[in-house]
């Protein structure tokens, strides 16, 4: 069940929780991820959906947050990471097709693994619980089917 041990997962999860908590206690913001795509599109698209007030109000800090996430992962890579930089061997078309569905689906659902999974569950939201169970079950089924079809890597 845990071929790589449980230590990195538990420590990683607690660090993420501390990051989200730190932002919440000081600013009251829910630091979630997928809204970034819609709020950043508000700079480029005049479509009313992207020009919603809540998107215009949060688009600045969401970019700051994404930059923080990138640099946080970079700091880990340059310090504690046992193997340093990493490049996936998952095929490009899987990244492209999967990314398209992730972008569309998370925005339609109004949350992703962090919005529903961390902040939503942390807020004891039943809506988020339904969403998390749904994307976990569907994600598992999809990954199993892709594997069964012999798509590697």
């Amino acid at each position: 069940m845990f071929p790589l041990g449980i230590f990195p997962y538990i420590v990683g999860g607690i660090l993420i929780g501390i990051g989200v908590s730190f932002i919440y206690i000081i600013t009251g913001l829910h630091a979630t991820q997928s809204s970034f795509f819609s709020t950043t599109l508000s700079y480029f698209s005049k479509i009313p959906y992207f020009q919603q007030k809540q998107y215009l109000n949060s688009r600045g800090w969401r970019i700051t947050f994404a930059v923080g996430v990138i640099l946080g992962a970079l700091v880990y890579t340059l310090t504690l990471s046992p193997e340093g930089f990493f490049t996936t061997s998952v095929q490009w078309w899987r990244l492209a097709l999967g990314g398209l569905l992730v972008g569309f689906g998370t925005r339609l659902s109004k949350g992703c693994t962090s919005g529903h999974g961390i902040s939503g569950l942390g807020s004891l939201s039943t809506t988020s619980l339904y969403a998390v169970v749904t994307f976990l079950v569907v994600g598992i089924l999809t990954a199993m089917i892709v594997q069964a079809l012999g798509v590697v890597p």
Partner: protein
Amino acid sequence: MRMRHLIVFIGGLLFGFGLAFGGMSKQEIVLSFLQLKDLGLLLLLGGSAFVTALTINLVPKILKRPLLGGEFKRRKRMLSKRTIIGAIIFGVGWGISGQCPGSAWASLGVGNIPVIIGIASMFIGAYIMGRLFT
């Protein structure tokens, strides 16, 4: 305002460090979780949600408002068909690629450059959603 950005940035550093530490920046690890070969990411999700739940539910009992002002709110979303249909579509994309929005940024930080393709696609997907559901 500048202070708010600094705090969000520091929180983002912790978030990204944690994602990379927990291996979520590697699509291979995410896929091995979804293939039920390594359930570790369940601990990562559970651990982060647990710490966040403690904060969101206990801190407002001690502090009246966030330190920089404003108010403490829970994250509430109305349950609708879109919540579930969106989660299904997200799940399919997650299972195909092993990517989700936060982990994609962490991937960039560990030098996992091909994920730029995934991020560009997420923008396109989010754009199509906004276009169709305005």
